[in-house]
Each structure stands twice: as C-alpha cells, then as structure tokens.
C-alpha cells in the first residue's frame, strides 16, 4: 500500500483510528473520569470531519472493491457533520449517572457505524457494500437497547436487529439473483449486463426492499415508530438522520451506476413507494402525542419527499437528494435536539407537556419553530429551497401528478407541525415546563443546527458545489 492509498481511504482510516483511541482512553481513564472519553470522542470526530474536507485524489482501490470520488467524499462529510452534531447533543445525556459507565462504548459503537456507512458509500462491489451495511446497522441495534433495564429500550433493540436481519436476508436473496444472471458482484461488471430480464427485475425488487427497510419506506416502515420511541433520544435522532441518510446515498449511487438500464422499472417502483411513504407517514404523524413517535413518522414522510429526487435520474436529481439530506440533517437534529434537551431536563416527551413552552423557554421554542418550518418547507429557512428543488427534479421529467401529490402532502405535514407550534406558542398550561438553562454542549449543537437551517438555503454556493460534484445516468 502506498501513501496515496492511505489518502484515498483517509476518512475510514481516521475513523478507525478514532475508535481505537477512544477504546485505549477508556482503559487508561479512572472510573470517575470516564466522561472525558465523551469529550475526546467529540474532538476526534471533529478532526475527522475537518480532515474530510481536504481535497484528495479520486480512484479505485483493491481491484475496484472500493471507489472514491468527489461526490462520495462529500456524502461522507455530510454524514460526519450530522454524526458530530449527534455526538455533541448526547454529551449531557451520556454524563448522567446511569450511563456513565458505558460512555466510551456509546461513542465507540457510533464511530464504527460511521465506518460501515463510509464503506457502504464507497463500495464498488456488492460484498463490500453488504459488509458496510451490516457494520452500519448492528451496532445501532446494540445502542437502541442502551437503557437495557427499561423494557421499551430492550424491545427497540430486539425489533431493530430482527427486522434489519430480515431485510438483509431479502437483500442478499436479491443480490444472489443478480449474481446468477450476471456472474459478477462488481458494480462495473454488472452494469453492462443488466438487461431487464424477469429474474433481474425480481432481484432488483428484493434489493430495493432491503434498502427500503433501512430508509423506512412504506410498506417496510413498521419497525420505525416502535424503535424510535423505545430507543434513547440521541439514538433515535441518529437512526432517523444519519442511518437514513447513508442508506439514501448508497441507494442513489447504486441505482445510478448499477441499474441505469432498468430506469423505467425503478422509476415506477419509486413513484408508488414515494406516494405511499409520504401519505402514510403524514397521516400517522397527525395522531401522535409522543414527540419521538411524532418525529419518527415525520421522518418517514420526509423519506418520501427525498425519493422524488431519484425520479430524474440525472445530475439535478442527485444534487437535490444530497442537498436535501444535508438540510434534513440540520432541521431534524434541531428538532431532536430540543426534544433531547427537554427530555434530559424534565423527562417530558409529550406534546401536551409543551403547552406554553414559549413563555418559559423562548429560545428553545424558536429553535424548534425554525426546525419544524424547515421540515415543512416554509421560507426563508432551508427546507423551502430543498423541497422546491426536489419537486423541480421530479417535474423536470414530467411527473407533475407526483409533484401535486407531494405538495398536497406538505400541507398535511404543515398541519401537524403547526400543532406543535400551537402547543408552544398559543396553548396555555397550568404546569408549563419550567425554565431551565441548557448546558454548553446542547447550546453549541443547537446553534450549529440553526445556523445550518438558515444558511444552507440562502447560500446558493452550497447547492452549486453539490451539483458540480453530482453525476447523472
């Protein structure tokens, strides 16, 4: 291996080094000072994130098993930023008495999922992709069961591991069909041999279903709400943003590079599933009282909008998907950050508990407002731009009916986001959540989210940069 190889692999290698350092630090730290590993983890991930932005050569490694290019590096950077935000948000939570002894495991497992996601994105071979996928999923199941003495958390862990292994099995079955018809698992070798024969279509559908589990696309979403509710809030936000984002990135790369020939098939598939995902996610979100479940269903519907960007199959489509995921990271983590802060301080997670929040905690309410507006696509925050471009990508190919259904869905979504607004700003409460001062790390994380939500939209340079790196079929 030459130095160049190291450079091309630097994001993965640095993450592995960070994981090992956390492990070593754990051994050498006293029992009382374990929380130092949380600070160390944040700093290490920060370094990895920054290092990811330095330009490196693109190319293939290990005989084409590993591919790196500008857009892949960008995707990894976006995931790193999101993960860093989750890390910062969870510092307070990890510091708590009952979690303190497991602090370094928490960060260790999260870093290893990031390694898995990076390999997934950079895969040039289906085995590499599959290993990355499992590495990105299994640690999260352990983390979902982090509060293992509470029933709900244990249930969440079991549900996640069972459903994800089922989906992996389906996915592998699909891949075996692809392998059977093409005789290879290299992306570059499969692509010219995909002809759209029946068995290939079947294999593709199985593959897509497996991925749909990870992105929680309807009808493969049933695990989502229970897992999101049972898992600790920081893991829920990680699952709903980072895991989902990684799966979306991988899916769009594989669809664009491996299956461009059967674009007609996957456009139809996505057409139907995106309508189902948006509509069902939205309709279920209306009835939710628990804010974690609420955000879970809202994130299902968001996945439906993201699928709109796939429809184009062109450079604009990929750019809008990446751009929207970036915005989604900031807005969803902003919302989850507020829920985490309030849950840490008071243990309250229901919508009724938020009545009159603006009068006691105005700043948190405003952060929540901006994040929800961004999720709903209201200007001037970034979600508006993200949604507009996604819809434009679908409209460009003439899918106007799909766009109309999607925009009508944004109205349903607006309704339930406004319900939260109503609770915070309009409703009055006998026992509002008392004023509390968030600690430093929470404020930093929320500050970054707000800055991201406000700036990502107006600063057209971000979108243009993403678009320049993206590719189409």
């Amino acid at each position, binding site marked *: 291996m030459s130095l160049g190889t190291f450079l091309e692999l630097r994001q993965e290698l640095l993450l592995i080094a960070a994981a090992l350092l956390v492990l070593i630090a754990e051994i050498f730290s006293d029992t009382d000072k374990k929380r130092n590993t949380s600070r160390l983890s944040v700093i290490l991930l920060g370094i990895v994130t920054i290092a990811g932005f330095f330009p490196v050569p693109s190319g293939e490694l290990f005989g084409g098993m590993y591919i790196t290019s500008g857009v892949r590096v960008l995707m990894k950077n976006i995931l790193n930023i999101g993960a860093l935000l989750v890390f910062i948000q969870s510092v307070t939570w990890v510091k708590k008495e009952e979690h303190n002894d497991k602090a370094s495991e928490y960060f260790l497992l999260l870093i290893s999922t990031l390694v898995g996601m990076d390999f997934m994105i950079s895969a040039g071979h289906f085995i590499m992709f599959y290993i990355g996928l499992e590495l990105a999923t299994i640690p999260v199941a352990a983390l979902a069961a982090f509060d293992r003495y509470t029933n709900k958390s244990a249930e969440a862990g079991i549900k996640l591991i069972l459903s994800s292994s089922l989906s992996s099995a389906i996915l592998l079955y699909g891949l075996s069909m692809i392998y059977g018809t093409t005789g290879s698992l290299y992306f570059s070798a499969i692509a010219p041999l995909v002809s759209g024969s029946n068995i290939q279509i079947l294999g593709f559908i199985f593959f897509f279903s497996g991925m749909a589990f990870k992105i929680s696309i309807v009808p493969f979403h049933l695990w989502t709400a229970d897992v999101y509710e049972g898992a600790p809030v920081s893991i829920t936000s990680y699952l709903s943003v980072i895991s989902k984002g990684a799966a979306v990135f991988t899916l769009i790369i594989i669809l664009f590079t491996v299956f461009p020939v059967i674009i007609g098939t996957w456009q139809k598939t996505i057409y139907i599933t995106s309508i189902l995902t948006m509509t069902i996610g939205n309709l279920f979100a209306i009835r939710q009282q628990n804010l974690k479940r609420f955000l879970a269903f809202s994130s299902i519907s968001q996945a439906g909008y993201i699928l709109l960007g796939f429809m184009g199959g062109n450079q604009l489509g990929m*750019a809008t998907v990446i751009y929207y995921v970036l915005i989604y990271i900031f807005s969803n983590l902003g919302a989850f950050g507020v829920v985490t802060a309030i849950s840490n301080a008071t243990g309250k997670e229901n919508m009724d508990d938020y009545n009159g929040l603006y009068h006691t905690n105005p700043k948190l309410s405003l952060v929540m407002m901006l994040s929800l*507006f961004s999720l709903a696509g209201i*200007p*001037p925050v970034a979600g508006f731009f993200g949604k507009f471009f996604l819809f434009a990508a679908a409209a460009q190919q003439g899918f*106007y009916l799909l766009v109309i259904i999607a*925009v009508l869905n944004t*109205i349903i979504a*607006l309704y339930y986001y406004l319900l939260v*607004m109503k609770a915070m700003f309009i409703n009055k409460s006998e026992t509002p959540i008392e004023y509390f001062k968030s600690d430093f790390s929470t404020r930093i994380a929320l500050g970054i989210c707000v800055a991201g939500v406000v700036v990502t939209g107006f600063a057209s340079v971000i979108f*243009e940069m993403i678009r320049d790196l993206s590719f189409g079929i």
Partner: protein
Amino acid sequence: MDILTLFVVIPVLTITGIILVKDTRQVKLVSAVGMGLQLIMAGVLLFLYISARHAGDTAEMMFVKDVVWFSSLNIHYTVGVDGISVAMICLTALVVFAGIFASWEVEFLRKEFFISLILLSAGVFGFFISIDLFTMFLFYELAVIPMYILIGIWGSGPKEYAAMKLTLMLMGASALILVGILGIYFNSAPGGGQLTFNILEISKVTIPMSAQRMFFPLTFVGFGVLGALFPFHTWSPDGHSSAPTAVSMLHAGVLMKLGGYGAFRVAIFLMPEAAKELSWIFIILTSISVVYGAFGAIVQKDLKYINAYSSVSHCGLVLFAILMMNQTAMTGAIIQMISHGLMTALFFALIGMIYGRTHTRMINEMGGLMKVIPFLSVCYVIAGLASLGLPGFSGFVAEMTIFVGAFQHPEMFYRIVTIVAASSIVITAVYILRVIAILLLGPVNNEHHEHLTDAKWFEKVSVITLICFIALIGLAPFGLSSMIGSSLQPIVTKILALNPF
C-alpha cells in the same frame, strides 16, 4: 443597494431594531419609525417612477436589479416595478403604516406581535417587487405563514380554528402555485435554450397550449384562493373575523391583493391563450363570488363577518375584471384592488376601534353610536359610502371602470354575466345602509354604551390617512389610471396580438 431592495431591507432592519430594544414601549416607536420610513420610500418611489416616465423611459419594468442566485437552475433575484406594482407598493406602505397605529394598544407579547406584523409586510413588499417567479413565490409564502401566529395568539373567538383553516388553505393554494410555476419554468423555452423563471422573458415566448391548459387552472386557482375565489373563499370570513385589527386590515387590505396581482401577473400574462379559452369557467366562479359574497354580507350579524363577506364580493370583482382581458376592465381591476385595499383597511380599523370600546361586534347589541362616538361613526359612514360606490370616492371609479370594461366584451355570455355581477352594487348598498342604520343611528339602546370616549390621537392618524387617500383617488383618478394604463399597455398588446377580438 437599489431602491427596490430597500423595501425588503427596511422591514428586516426594523425587526432587528425591535429585537434589540429592551423597553416594550420603544417597540411601538421603532415600528412606527420603520414603517413611516417605508411610507416615505413608497412616496419617493412613486415620484421617481412618474418622473422617469415623463422623461420618456418606456421600459416595461423600471429600476430593474438582477442578481444570479442559483445559477444551475437559472434562478435570479430579480426586482423591478411598473406602474401597477408601484401602486400596490404605495397601498401596502399605507395600510401597514395605518396598521401599526391601529395596534398601538397591543399589550400581550408586544414585541412578537410587531415582529410578525412587519415580517408579513416584508413578504408582501417582496412579492410586489419580484419579477422572478422563484423569488416571488418565496415572498408569497413568507407573507402567509406569520398569519398563523398573528391570528392564533392575538386573535379573538375561535382563533385557533380560524388560524389553522386560513393557513392550511392558503398554503394549499401555494402548493398549486408551486406546481404551476414549475410547469411554466420547464416550458419556458419551447424551442430549446435556457429555461428561465423571469416573467418578462417568459412573456416573450408562447408556452405550448397543452402545458397552458394544465398549468393555467393551477396557477389561477392557486392565486384565486387568496383572492377569495368561490368556492375557496371560506378561509376569509373566519380568518378575518378572528384576526386582531391590524392583521385584518393588512390581510383584507393587502394580502388578498396578492391573489389578484398574482393571477394577473403570472396566470393571465404568461398564459393568455389558456386564459381566453378557459375564462368562462372562472368568470362564472368569480361572479358567484361577487353576488354570493354580497348576499352573505346581508345576513351576517357580526361586523367583521359582514366586512369579510363584502371583501369576498369586492375581491371577486377584481378577478372578474382581470378575466375580461381588455384594457378598461383590467385598469378597473387594479384600481379596485387599491380602492378596496384602502376601504377595507379603514373598515377593519374602525371595527377594531368600536370593538375596543363596546366589547361587542354584534350589530343588534349596539345602536345610536353616532351620538356617543361621532368621529368614529362619521368615518364609518364615509367608509360605507365609499364601499357602496358613491361618486367622489375610490369605489365608484373602480366599479364604474370595471363594468364599462366588462360590457365591452363582444360575446353575449360575458355581457350577461356582467349584468349579473353588476347587481352586487345594489346588494352592497343594502347591507351597508342596514349596518349604518342599526349601528349608528337611532337611540342608544345599550346603557353601557352611553359614556364611550371618542378616537384617540393615534387612531385618528390611522383613520384620517386612509380616508384622505380614498377621497384622493375618488376625486382625481386620472393620475392613477393613466399610470396603470400605460403599464397595462404591453400586457394588453400581447393579449390582443394573440387573440384579436
């Protein structure tokens, strides 16, 4: 910085000022100064515009400023004004200014109230100066969303229901507009070439008829919802009656005009062929708005509901006139927008002031107010007379022009519909005079109302400003109508060139 961008920057600076001041008393002052400055700027803009036209500048849009925003989608921040937008900007500045004074006594969360109110006005100003569809749409949504908070927190009656209904219906409308805009964008270069969001450039090409048939109804209905197009007007009575005074003023006075302006500038101007083909459907709907709104106002007992239904009727008339697609009717439509904006703002301001004193808006619980609060009562009579189209006020000029223009349409169907719509003038007189008779004349029938105090200084500022301009337009309409007429020229020429009557 160009003069038009200032119209968005001043509200933003005012909001920053409001956030920075500590004392809530200063909030009012900062808002008044900011919006006063905005009013002065509107006057300066009007002056600059007229003098440039006199100097012989015949460009379709003036003071154009173009900045590339998202280059890959060819989205620009483009602003520019013609006579119509200048008139609308002046109207907005006036109503916002009056609105600030009408809400002088808001106590609860005062800072947040003025921030939301001014944010709303920033959206409206931005909408009127935009000539790029993307920017226009952005400002449109920016103007709608503060309404939810404004009505939800400071409203009265079933305010949460009304706020939710209004917001969802208007955002639903904007969803239709979004699809319409995307459709226009992707058909803006039928011969190949660069797609564009710029209204002026799109107006130079002919969008394919198949696309027009699909996107004209979407765009027109989308903007029509905001202009209270039947059967999508139902947000208006609930929203207006629950909103606090200044918000009703701004909403009925200005925000509903976004609908008329957008339907005219985007739907009709860019897709005239489909507009001509499909206008009969919308003519029927708008005439229902006009007549039904007026009848609706007759049976209401709540002052705000009466005025809200009357707004449905008057704004329906705007859309009705635009669809007639000739110079006279369209000029009438624009004058009607301005005139109705001023009139209805005056109405809502007065209703708010009366309600603040009597604590009821039910007309049968009041009577003889002329004896106790003569100033407000006389102003109410003036507003009423202007609304029913008495010569000398702006309403007469507007409605006269509209009906004369509409009757010029050569086809019999349109003439018959015009006659039907014109009947609203009579119905309007019925409900206006009925309210004046019950509310203001006769004996004082409620002993609590015998010792009310008349208008305070800030209320007088608000009311007199509006009355002056209503009378000004009514007595000297030619300045306004020639300014509008010359700006309509290129639009009408485009329509006539394509569809010779």
